[in-house]
């Protein structure tokens, strides 16, 4: 297809909102990751405490 005949579906001028939406997505992704890491650390701490308790 020739370059001149191709039509994009979206109106022009959406880069700013796209960047903002992507940054919001990334912030949420990071927040979920931090929460998950904290949970994993808490699980490890509990397992370790439980092992020490059994040993004692």
């Amino acid at each position: 297809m020739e370059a001149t005949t191709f039509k994009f579906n979206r109106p022009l001028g959406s880069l700013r909102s796209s960047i903002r939406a992507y940054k919001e997505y990334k912030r949420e992704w990071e927040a979920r990751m931090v929460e998950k890491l904290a949970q994993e650390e808490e699980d490890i701490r509990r397992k370790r405490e439980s092992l020490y308790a059994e040993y004692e």
Partner: protein
Amino acid sequence: MNSLDTNRITQFAPYKVWYTDGEYRFETDHGILYAIDFKEEPMFSPIPAYWFNLMNRSRKASPNDVKTRATVTCIIEEFFQANPDILLYLCDNANDQQAMRSRLFLRWFNGYAQQENYYIRTEKVDDEGEENYVAIIVSRQHPYLTNIIERFDTEIAMFKSEKPS
């Protein structure tokens, strides 16, 4: 998006790559866990486009590691094998290091053996005082490459001329 073949990636990448929880992950010799995902971006519709999202999951300082670079480029290569589409990259603005990250990403990609097969460009745009470095990567074989570049150029020009809302 078509999923990536992690076996094929691992065949060529220095680090083993696996898929879990919607992410492609790998762990470095330094014990740093990286995650990569791809978020669909409708800006170029009907041509599919995706944001390339790279995250240091361990949140530890990452030393310069050629194996990390090689693994990331293998993942990008596999992305284009499975999805002959558009890849976008926005440099993380953590610690105001966007410019450095932009250069690093370009250096990584330009050091990649197959990079001549791809069109890549980075632009800086400011949004409410915050610098954003946006990179676009498209296969030079893409049938609509000219349209995509024109669209990207126009979007960048409009962004720079607009006042933020």
